[in-house]
């Protein structure tokens, strides 16, 4: 069984998937903010990326710096096979839980 993912971990991993070759810290932060439609702390994304890398779900490499970053490098992330497995299992778990129910739930349509 793959790693069980929290909702925020899924958001970060899916941002890495969507951004492909452009998945570095700030881009991931903006993608997560946009998808969750709320302000997200940079520290939360950074801590999650660090944890996901420790678990082997993503891998990273350093890119080059730019003047706007005072020459500091970007760290690019890419999904690892364990990350793909974890995301697939997370999706499967949600689909199983929702199987047979109409979405969105509406009070009165089979709901007390």
């Amino acid at each position, binding site marked *: 069984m793959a790693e069980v993912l929290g909702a925020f971990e899924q958001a970060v991993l899916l941002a890495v998937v969507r951004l492909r070759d452009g998945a*570095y*810290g*700030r881009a991931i*932060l*903006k993608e997560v903010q946009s998808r969750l439609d709320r302000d997200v*702390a*940079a*520290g*939360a994304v*950074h*801590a999650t990326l*660090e944890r996901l890398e420790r678990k082997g779900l993503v891998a990273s490499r*350093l890119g080059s*710096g*730019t003047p*706007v*970053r*005072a020459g*500091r*490098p*970007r*760290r690019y992330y890419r999904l690892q096979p364990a990350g793909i497995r974890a995301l697939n299992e997370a999706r499967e778990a949600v689909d199983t839980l929702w199987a047979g129910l109409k979405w969105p739930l509406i009070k009165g349509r089979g709901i007390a």
Partner: protein
Amino acid sequence: MTTGGDARPPRWAEGVLRSMLASEHRDNVSGDLLEEYRTTIVPARGPSAADRWYRRQVAGFVWRATWPWALLFSGAFVVRQAFDFFVPTHDFYFRSLLTTYTAVALLAATSLWSAWRSGSFVAGVLVTVVMTQIAAVLSVLGVSLLLAIWHDSATMKAAADSGGVAEAYVLPFMAVIPALIVGTVAGAIGSVSRRLFSAGTAR
């Protein structure tokens, strides 16, 4: 509209951020924050609001580095208070000894871990000092909760005999003094060991 091309966030905040980060993430994470500050936040909100945003982000990093230790530290303090309130004694020597050693061990562990992780002596001292103040607030809340639930005369007498309720509210904040001393020593050990270890593995 203000452009943030060469705007700089508060130097002290950037210094705190860089000292807190693990050495392998120091440049890329501080670079991400600087890029966001210059390209999005300053143009959209102006320099003052952007500086506030930057300080908030740094506070988030400090909070993440300190809260688990603060929870442990305040937990130890509240447990000690609970023993004094509910299992009263006249001989506090053993309890005080145990509490002191536990507190010093937690302060040292906090500083060592932070300094080792970041390779920065400053991070060791800073995290330890901030941790004690967050722990102090949690301790006050914990003791207040205990007294809100159990405030019968026997418990209040035991509290008074163990140094008084006021002491339970003031003492946690005083931990900043041992935090400075223990944090300095352990921070120095942590950062020097990290450098020696890194030099050894690089060879």
